[in-house]
């Protein structure tokens, strides 16, 4: 008993401190919901954090697979958009799933942008159905180029930024169409030629593909009019266009497959003979 009293005399304040702190912790844990939960699930917070990190890692590892499926999905959506563009002002076809165009998603392996004639190599080739003279469009908006040749696993694409590019384009919700060529060295600007000068156009009008060639369906967005002028003595506008897509950093592309393309070309060839 004497020892106990001596102990209290010596360490009384320390014991009092410990007792008061224990009371405080008891109060904290019993009367505060959030601290109570943390006290009970303390280990779970750590395990949750670790699980979170693991999920981030595995998500990163799965990115390629996710990307592929997203591209497939995108291709379907763009196909539907093309279908809508045709259905809105044509007489609806009796076969409602009639769609002459289908898209093949592809990644871009190699590209040049700063030459006079620029090319892109796609990582898919004739094994996936890519053939010469198919159009290539970008994932968001805008067109990329035309397939020149294809091997079994790769395809060689002539981009818009090429001296021989000539793509038939129209002006959205106006009449008139011309051909899109690349004349200057700016990779964001192209020229639309041979739009007759009696057509009414304005700065800011949207340029879309006209659908007159077999390569691109109608209605793919290309760019907008930045300015235009009529050369003296010329009968046509000379229109500068700002492209929607930046060809210097495209990574994914869709190859447009036209089911009736060869049929149309053969027929046209017969007539011109």
């Amino acid at each position, binding site marked *: 008993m004497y020892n106990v009293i001596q102990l209290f005399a010596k360490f*009384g*304040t320390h014991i*009092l*401190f410990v007792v*008061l*702190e224990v*009371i*405080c*912790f*008891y*109060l*904290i*844990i*019993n*009367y*505060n919901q*959030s*601290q109570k939960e*943390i*006290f009970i699930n*303390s280990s779970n*917070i*750590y395990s949750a*954090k670790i699980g979170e990190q693991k999920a981030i890692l595995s998500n990163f590892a799965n990115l390629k697979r996710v990307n592929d499926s997203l591209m497939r999905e995108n291709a379907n959506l763009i196909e539907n958009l093309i279908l809508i563009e045709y259905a809105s002002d044509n007489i609806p076809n009796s076969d409602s799933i009639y769609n002459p165009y289908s898209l093949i998603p592809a990644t871009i392996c190699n590209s040049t942008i700063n030459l006079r004639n620029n090319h892109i190599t796609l990582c898919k080739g004739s094994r996936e159905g890519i053939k010469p003279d198919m159009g290539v469009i970008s994932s968001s908006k805008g067109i990329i180029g035309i397939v020149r040749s294809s091997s079994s696993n790769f395809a060689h694409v002539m981009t818009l930024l090429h001296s021989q590019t000539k793509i038939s384009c129209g002006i959205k919700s106006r009449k008139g169409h011309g051909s899109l060529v690349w004349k200057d060295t700016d990779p964001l600007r192209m020229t639309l030629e041979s739009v007759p000068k009696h057509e009414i156009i304005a700065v800011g009008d949207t340029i879309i593909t006209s659908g007159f060639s077999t390569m691109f369906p109608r209605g793919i967005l290309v760019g907008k009019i930045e300015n235009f002028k009529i050369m003296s003595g010329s009968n046509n506008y000379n229109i500068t266009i700002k492209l929607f897509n930046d060809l210097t950093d495209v990574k994914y592309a869709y190859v447009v497959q036209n089911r009736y393309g060869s049929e149309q070309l053969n027929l046209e060839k017969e007539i011109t003979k």
Partner: protein
Amino acid sequence: MNNTVPTNIIRFLIVFLVQVWIFKHITFSFGGFVFIHFLIYPMAILLMPIKTPRSLVLGLAFVLGLMIDMSYDSVGVHTGALVFTAYIRNVIIAFLEPYEGYNIDDVPTIKNMGIGWFISYLSVGLLLHIFLYFSLEAFSFVFIFEIFLNTISSFIVTFIVILISQFIFRTKY
């Protein structure tokens, strides 16, 4: 010596009321993340006379902490931090002991101990208190980054408020 007890009781009550009525309602946040709280009540414990019995300081800290907790609806959090501050107070005082020791009636004020002593005493005590308060509030060191941010921002504003109050109310005891 005669005025010491009433002065401390009045300060105890005024600090409690000011904390609950005014500073409880002032909080700042930057970007919804860093919060600034004014926690001036440790002042009542830290400014008690140096030779106050330690168990009395602990008991008063417990009572004041419970009073603060009741108005903050956070049972035990302020109390735990304040009891610890009251306990560590003597350690800080022993660390800062001047060469000739303390007098029996010394009080930790600017007038009595000098501004350098007072600032080091107040900053160490207050920083420990605020750090412990936010640790107990978060209750897990998973949130260590938030605890440190809260501690530093709240410490700076609280320290300034207490220092200004010391210059305005120059209490002798």
